[in-house]
């Protein structure tokens, strides 16, 4: 579906290599403090991009602006031809009603630092909740899908467990399965391993690695620079709400150009 009507129509001959997701001029303030200044980013289909930066640099806020968990004051996000959260009418950008926003959000999956599994639902119920209640798939189909996804993240035997009975690493893998169950076009990771005990980081990174290798479009906010360098195609470095450097992830080895990036890397590597 497209959220655009009126004069601002989209060119119909969009090229296949056009970015899947494009953000332009995203600005956001919290109570007078501007955390994002005019941030723009393109991510192509199948690409894995990591957002790096110190805490407070705005990387998580930017990620949350992409799926409308935060409302940017200025700027737009386009996902596969849809203008997210807005429609254009009579020369002005209007906010979409919550219901239509919700429909758009189904196209973006998100994995949180704190997992945020539904505490009152079992693992299986967590995974099939949105496919059944939001996407309207049949329970049987959603269940079969869910079991497949849980097998992929290595948790098929935990279908009946409640989140509180799982380790952090297991919860995060269920959260990834839950996001995948909606068959999103892009998966956003907000520091997926920052709340984990060290011995559980790898099991989660392995699942993310498999997804990236499998061609999933991903945007990953992370402090795991080693992982970012190995798995991601591209890095974006933010400082004080601005992109100060971006480039191929291989450059994270030694070739970072900007002094701020080099300084950051020297501290986390």
């Amino acid at each position, binding site marked *: 579906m497209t959220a655009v009507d009126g004069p601002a129509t989209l060119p119909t001959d969009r090229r296949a290599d056009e970015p899947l997701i494009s953000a332009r001029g995203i600005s956001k303030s919290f109570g007078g403090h501007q955390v994002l200044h005019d941030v723009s980013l393109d991510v192509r289909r199948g690409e894995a991009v990591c957002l790096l930066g110190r805490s407070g640099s705005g990387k998580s806020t930017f990620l949350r602006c992409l799926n409308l968990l935060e409302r940017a004051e200025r700027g737009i996000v386009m996902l596969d031809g849809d203008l997210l959260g807005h429609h254009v009418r009579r020369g002005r950008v209007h906010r979409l009603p919550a219901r239509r926003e*919700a429909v758009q*959000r189904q196209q973006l999956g998100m994995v949180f630092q704190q*997992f945020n599994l*539904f505490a009152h639902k079992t693992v299986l119920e967590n995974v099939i909740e*949105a496919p059944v209640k*939001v*996407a309207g798939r049949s329970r049987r189909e959603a269940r079969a899908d869910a079991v497949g996804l849980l097998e992929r993240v290595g948790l098929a035997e935990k279908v009946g467990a409640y989140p*509180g009975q799982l380790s952090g690493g297991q919860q995060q893998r269920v959260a990834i399965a839950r*996001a995948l169950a*909606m068959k999103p076009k892009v998966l956003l990771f907000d520091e997926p391993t920052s709340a984990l005990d060290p011995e559980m980081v790898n099991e989660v990174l392995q699942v993310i690695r498999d997804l990236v290798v499998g061609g999933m479009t991903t945007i990953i906010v992370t402090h795991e620079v080693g992982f970012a360098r190995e798995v991601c195609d591209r890095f974006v470095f933010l400082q004080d709400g601005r992109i100060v450097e971006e480039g191929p992830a291989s450059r994270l080895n030694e070739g970072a150009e900007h002094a701020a990036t080099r300084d950051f890397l020297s501290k986390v590597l």
Partner: protein
Amino acid sequence: MADPGRDAATSDTSGPTTSAAPAASGGADAWDRHLAELAAIPHARRLHLLRALLAVVLLAAGTRLVWSVVENPAFEWSTVRSYFFSDPVLTGLENTITLTALSMGLALVVSVLIANMRLSDNPVLRATAGVYVWFFRSVPLLVLLILWFNISLIYPTFSIPLPGGGWSWETKDLMTAYWSAVLAFGLQQAAYTSEIIRASLLAVPSGQREAALALGMPPGQIFRRIVFPQAMKIAVPPVSNDLINLLKATALVAFISVPDLLYSVQQIYNRTFEVVPLLMVATLWYMILVSILSLGQFYLERWLGRSAGARVSLRARAARSTT
């Protein structure tokens, strides 16, 4: 790591050794043997003598107290027995139960609505709900009850005007004593309960809502399927308190002559002067009702807490580590 205990024991050759420490001449092997022997001694069970004594004393005192009630002729237990299942008492009991159930039902519906309005982004809804809570918490329940009962004096007719007619009723036909009681209790209870519901909704971690949003759930569904069920778990103990309070507060309907449990026994003892036994009849029924409600609360909490596996296992782990 240094082992100060061992150093002390092995170096202290001149002084007298305690009975637990071996002579240092045996060296490391002797020390290890000694530790093994110590480790093999079974742990004594702690005797809780004071606890046992306290239990005995309280049990004795309690028995004496209960016996003083049972054998006391002033309670006239045979009279209690003869009225316990009498028709007026059972009718009163039924009225108390239905009045409580209807009032609480109304209160729950209104309180969820008010709580949501107070948490809304919309300042008009927030203010409206704020005024509601302020008003119904500040007017005394008895005044509210009598006002509702006499509403026909203030507003003699109730009408829904529509273009081309509409409807109109005499207020006194609509507002019987029973229904004015339901309104008074329900609406005031809603003001109190809405604060519990609001606090419970706020206590659900914001990540739950965000996760549901990110999955593309529309707002109504997020409330119904994610936030509200988790808030309920938090709200059950305080709302149960409210319900039990309300059960007994319904006795105020005596002022507008609705024959509830208490008013029914009052009518009997006004005639027969058997005040104490009839108050016992009402009290025993209230105690039975509250016991049933408490039992229901226990099972409801257990059922809602079925997902709290982590907390149980943490507690189990803590218990294991201390033994």
